[in-house]
């Protein structure tokens, strides 16, 4: 059970994390907050943005701030699954006989930066599936548990589509959030340039250990959720399906495939963390609605009509939210 100390620590550590991240990452408040919420809630994050907006830097900074083992995997078309998971190699034993020995890949870490994940082939992308969901890696029939906490923070570039492989739905679904990293504002650009003119060195300090992070997660998990809010969340998830008992007109018109049950889980888990970060001890409708965009935008597949009308996933989510909110709140 969470104690007063846990609550106090959560609050203090959250403040420290945000402060330290802000030392290296200028602006991008929503992206930073989203990434931290996902990490506390135990989810993976897909960061999408054009080159140079600070995606990789943010992930590197988080690695430093959380004081966790950090590995970077640069995804390229020739990257093989074994390059990610590791493989068995033949070594000579003390008795002089050759034997297989498992050489762990970079995935055996706590924070994995999967840089430009959509440049690798689907086969290599799929090497992450088991690790992202079960936090285990199976090589040559042997499963190995990954250390906790474990996160995959992936980046991808929405342009330069040549030579890229869109992530399959199963992979997408394993990311708790898909965060769109916007271009910095003029003021933010000025701050970035001023900072980097002085030094390119990242200066963020450790604000939280892995154990503390797990405790924060455990504390957040105890935040109560009213039945009304829980039901609303599940209705919202289900309402993204074109065929369901609570399907919205928007979903019927614009969505080909709706969000999976993982979306509902993600909304509640992340909602608890968000509420606690705000200093509230219960999940509100507003938490769920704010989180609906990063949770749902990569889980719904738009149909041809939506694409033809130039609608984005966020536009459709907004319409679904309006309908669900009007009818069920």
């Amino acid at each position, binding site marked *: *059970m*969470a*104690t*007063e100390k846990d*609550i106090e620590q959560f609050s203090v550590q959250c403040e420290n994390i945000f402060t330290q991240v802000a030392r290296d990452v200028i602006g991008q408040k929503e992206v930073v907050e989203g990434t931290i919420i996902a990490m506390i809630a135990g989810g993976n994050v897909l960061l999408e943005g054009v080159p140079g907006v600070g995606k990789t830097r943010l992930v590197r900074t988080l690695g430093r701030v959380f004081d966790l083992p950090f590995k970077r995997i640069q995804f390229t078309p020739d990257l093989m699954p074994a390059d990610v998971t590791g493989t068995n190699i033949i070594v000579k034993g003390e008795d002089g006989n050759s034997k297989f020995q498992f050489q762990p890949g970079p995935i055996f870490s706590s924070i994995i930066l999967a840089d430009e994940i959509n440049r690798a082939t689907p086969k290599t992308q799929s090497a992450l599936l088991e690790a992202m969901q079960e936090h285990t890696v199976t090589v040559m029939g042997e499963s190995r548990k990954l250390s906790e906490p474990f996160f995959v923070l992936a980046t991808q570039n929405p342009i330069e589509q040549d030579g890229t492989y869109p992530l399959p739905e199963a992979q997408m679904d394993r990311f708790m959030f898909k965060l769109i990293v916007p271009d910095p504002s003029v003021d933010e650009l000025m701050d970035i340039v001023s900072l980097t003119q002085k030094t390119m060195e990242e200066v963020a300090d450790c604000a939280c250990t892995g154990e503390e992070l797990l405790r924060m997660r455990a*504390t957040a998990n*105890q*935040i*109560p*959720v*009213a*039945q*009304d*809010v829980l039901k609303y969340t599940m209705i919202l998830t289900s309402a993204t399906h074109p065929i369901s008992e609570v399907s919205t007109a928007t979903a019927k018109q614009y969505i080909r495939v709706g969000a999976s049950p993982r979306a509902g889980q993600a909304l509640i888990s992340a909602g608890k963390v968000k509420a606690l970060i705000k*200093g*509230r*001890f*219960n*999940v*509100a*409708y*507003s938490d769920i609605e704010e989180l609906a965009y990063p949770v749902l935008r990569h889980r719904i597949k738009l149909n041809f009509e939506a694409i033809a009308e130039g609608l984005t996933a966020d536009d459709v989510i907004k319409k679904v939210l309006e309908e669900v909110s009007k009818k069920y709140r």
Partner: protein
Amino acid sequence: MNEYMKKHRKHLIKEAVIKSLMAGLSIGFLVLFIVAFVFFMTGFSAYWLSFVIFFVVSAAAVVALYFLKYRPGEKDIARRIDKLGLDERIITMTEYSDNDDYIFTRQREDAVGSLYKTFSHSSDGSKKRSGADNLGSSLIKIVIPLSLIIILSVMFLFGSGMATVSVMSAEGVIPNGGKIIEDINEERNKRYFEVTYVVEGGGFIEGDEVQIVEAGKDASPIVAVADDGWVFMYWSDELEDPFRTDVKIKDNIVLTAYFQEAEDGDDGDDGDGEGDQPGDEPGDTEGENQGDNDSNNPSSGAGGKYDPANQVFDGETYYGGDIYKQYYEDGVESVSQEGTTDKDEKDYIIDYLKTIAD
């Protein structure tokens, strides 16, 4: 129940009562409409019964709706308070009120703190007294859904309108619905037929050539009149009389009047025949063609078979003596009847008639 919940409960009970009243009355008016309609249609005169039913149903509906639908429960009150911007704190607190773990205790403290904070400010943002006393000055307003107001208004119009009609019907001001429907059906079930008279040859129809006649009723009289140099022959239904009044029409009919060009010496001109002279007797050989005396050609130029009553008094045609005798006898009989005319005048008229008859 917590103190603040009790304070708001009274407020929401008022709202529930108003909603129940409105919804109950709507149901009552609907029932009134139905009952009044039935009474109106059946001609049932005890219209007061519909008002009794209205009051009973309305009262029952109000009570049932209050207890089954509108009576505010703890969660309903919590939800309403949360709508003031409390971010579901109160509903969560209500649901987990029996959990004493630290985080739930903190949640309750947070909820109550937010509640006081919310109620210590008026809706325009100005600061008011804080504390439990201030919870009485509720920001929760009684909200009546527009849909309920519209439904009640419509039901009132329908119910009261139908009740008025029913009362008027029962009082004999207007006929009852059954009678109105009966009349409408009778009118709707009436069938009409078209009676058309056409001509073939030289002639025309005197009267309405096309007539719309109700089934079973008679058409108006017409006569087939021949042009100069033509004679009427017969109708397409073999009737030889140019005058006709078709009776008891049961179908659409088209009747054709056939005319034939008059032969030499029988031009049919007003029934004149060669050698016809006033004073000639019908039996005279010279008058063979006078009028319609041709047995093979029953029509005359006057538009039909020869008949004393079918001729025009043109001063030229011989009409036969019998008819003048008949006119004389009718005149004498008429004049001889009791009246104000004195004997000398009667004698004078009789003498005059005699001159015509002669």
